[in-house]
């Protein structure tokens, strides 16, 4: 599987994503600079990494969502390319309109960083199939704007369609219905606030993240 990571100015988890993808796929991911206009055609999986793209100015993810490479990302995602956005990447994907809803400031108005237990709500998605029925995972969270919001109709639809992939086991940021990660309608685009790429090594304190990447790899084969 060919993977790629997009770097915006002040993406800061691009190296973390690179390292995790390299470890799981055994191949070096392609690093794509935000000013490039095209995702290489042979890429199967794109990660939009965490960080503070454009310093979170305007709104988290808002400026990155209008960068040249995201235009192509929107197009290719529409044609079925697998995309995952972690943390700031989730914010970029909502701002780009690839995922519904928005991420507001945490309800306690503070940055929160801790290992967080999540429930896998949909274990059959392209991003969770390798968990094989496992109900809970622990991934680190580290964000200031992770308070997921969407109107009731959207939330009902997300839940009904199995688009809610992860929920927090305790509400850490005010997110509607404890939502931590969702996919689009088609199921090929994932956005989530927690960091599975920082849970792929026993020295990270846990390896629950590996199977998320493994699921994508399995689906591509």
């Amino acid at each position, binding site marked *: 599987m060919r993977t790629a990571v997009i770097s915006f100015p002040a993406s*800061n988890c691009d190296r973390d994503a690179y390292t995790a993808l390299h470890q799981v796929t055994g191949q070096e991911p392609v690093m794509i600079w935000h000013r490039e206009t095209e995702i290489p055609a042979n890429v199967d999986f794109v990660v939009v990494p965490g960080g503070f793209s454009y310093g*979170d100015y305007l709104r988290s993810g808002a400026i990155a969502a209008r960068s040249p490479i995201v235009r192509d990302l929107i197009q290719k995602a529409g044609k079925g390319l697998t995309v995952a956005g972690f943390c700031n990447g989730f914010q970029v994907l909502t701002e780009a309109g690839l995922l519904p809803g928005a991420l507001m400031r945490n309800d306690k108005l503070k940055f929160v960083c801790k290992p967080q237990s999540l429930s896998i709500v949909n274990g059959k998605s392209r991003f969770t199939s390798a968990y094989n029925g496992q109900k809970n995972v622990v991934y680190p969270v580290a964000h*200031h704007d992770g308070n997921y919001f969407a109107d009731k109709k959207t939330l009902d639809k997300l839940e009904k369609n199995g688009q809610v992939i992860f929920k927090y086991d305790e509400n850490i940021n005010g997110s509607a219905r404890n939502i931590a990660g969702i996919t689009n309608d088609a199921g090929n685009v994932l956005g989530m606030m927690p960091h599975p790429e920082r849970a792929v090594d026993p020295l990270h304190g846990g390896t629950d993240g590996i199977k998320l990447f493994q699921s994508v790899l399995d689906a591509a084969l």
Partner: protein
Amino acid sequence: MSKKIKITPEIVKEHGLSEEEYQIILDRLGREPNINELGIFSVMWSEHCSYKSSRRHLGKFLTKGKRVIQGPGENAGVIDIGDNDAIIFKMESHNHPSYIEPYQGAATGVGGIMRDVFTMGARPIANMNALRFGEISHPKTKSLLSGVVAGIGGYGNCVGVPTVGGETNFHKGYNGNILVNAMCVGLAHQDKVFYSAAKGVGNPIFYVGSKTGRDGIHGATMASAEFDDDSEEKRPTVQVGDPFTEKLLIEACLELMATDAIIAIQDMGAAGLTSSSIEMADKGGVGIKMNLDKVPQRETNMTPYEMMLSESQERMLMVLVPGKEHLALEIFQKWELDVAEVGVTTDTGRLVLTHKRKTVCDIPIAPLADDAPNLDRPHTKTPERPVLSADEARAPDNYNDALNTLITCPDMASKRWIWEQYDRHVMADTVDSSQSGGDAAIVRIHGSNKAVAITTDCTPRYCYADPYEGGKQVVAETWRNLTCTGATPIAITDCLNFGNPERPDIMGQFVGCVEGMNEACRAFDYPVVSGNVSLYNETNGVAIPPTPAVGGVGLIDDLDVFTTITGAQEGDTLVLIGETQGWLGSSLYGREILGHERADDAPVYAPPPVDLAVEKTNGDYVRSLIKNRRVKAVHDLSDGGLAMSAAEMCFAAGIGAELKAAPSGVTLQGWLFGEDQARYLLAVDENSVNPVVSTAQAKGIPAQIVGKVGGAQLKAAGAFDVNLSDLKSANERVLPDLMKSKA
């Protein structure tokens, strides 16, 4: 314009220059300086930039060692950790700005220390801090704490460097002067370390980073004066940081450093363009000519004086190899940063500045550094303190209550409220951080199986009572903390925070602490490679307790073998290494239970003495046990003694423990709460108990079985018996409750 300002004695005084200092300027110039020149001399000779009160004492420090590549005198210290890897680190204060504007003061403190590290070619891999606030009931403490923590997090999180550890104390001695000391650790290749000496004539000087504005003018001078009731008026001199620009600057500088375009590079920190250009020229033995019209400016009509003294953040100055200018232009434009050729190195030995086609400054560079005042301030030794007698070191009325009081005092309280606001995992190499409550953070060297252990420490209580013993203890505690992970301690950085050095008693504290620290550095072969001095931490004549914070760095050469505070299991035996006499003078128990600091004129008792030879023997032994995989968890004994150390180890494991009764000759309170030095608590499994204890005894190292891990209670025979989870929730509640309270 500048030329029209007449230099009066009042203006000289406003610039913090003494009459003698001004006379030296007149002698060196052979004429009266203009306002720009006066401003430049003033900041270069400020306490902050010239270290005029401290320089002769800092010279005594051990600064060399077999792993030292660069000691003090550059932007940061550089040590060799093998495999062509170098660790570059430094700690620095941002005390005065953080008191006036806590968010920006702390944020720019973090930004500044990271620039010191990446200026030298290192990618920052970890941030640490050492924070001191006033007493928790003081009306300003809450807002200062929340502002400082948000500022540290706001900057470090955005730049994407994990904040992995630190320490936070609360004491009335900091009511009027908080301390914000930030440390950064970076990783470089040994053959790609960059220095600030601007060697060679005719080389282009480039300015990169943010534009210059009017913020922070005379910040260095502010940091060289006491506060009074009007200090709030100094708010405009606090700089404003932009971590987004810093992140771009890191990436752009590292990208340019990978080429061969840079001769010298220096960040613009205190005293901005002035100190960066003068330091580079002075070290390189050259002159500098700059055209200030070329300096990227954020505001209109800036004067030369403002441009030279501005402390706008996220700026760098560099000297490039002629012909390589295009590389800098391309890379900085890619990262959307300002870049401008502002000058050239010359053979005149002078700093010449032009502005609007006029020469606005023309002064020799050598006197700015060579003739900087180097004062021998009078200092008086801190009086010797009595040893707390056995009678006065009374037992608590109730041991359960005493345990609870200690574990919930602000200094011992869980700092989760603080560190959950810091991204501790970004870069995905954090192995251990504040989260575990352990002795030192552990950060892996990316792509390897090595790691650095990092700690920050200081016990101002001891330094106040006895600066010399306290100074020794600070260094010893960092060495002990690193040892607890199995790391080999390598070197330290320091941040020496004191009151007004013009007072002989304060200067005596400074000299005493430095001498004690140096003694310990030499005993451990543990050199000082960088540091910073912050004086005048005084408000209305009340000085802070002497606070020489130390950041220690050690190397774990194999991540298959290390320990943390976590890992004790049901049934493990607790072994105490080191001798316990039950020292309670200047202890946490003395302060919190015996009320030793309650009255202003309360007697001060001698702190625990530090036997450096014993420290070394005990520490080396513990490290060997870790290397031989004989221990499951390790924690040093410090504030609150055995009881606190055991409680923290139990918190980390989520299991209780039972401690044995005091050995004969030691009081129960001294046994549980005494702060004798050179001690470690180990959790050891059954099979290792005998080898651990008997080998120690064969080497003459005190080692005794002091209890067992297990159950839901934390017990000590004849003393306390409390539910561990109740104790932990009490410990966890302190800061959240404080921050929620309305007062």
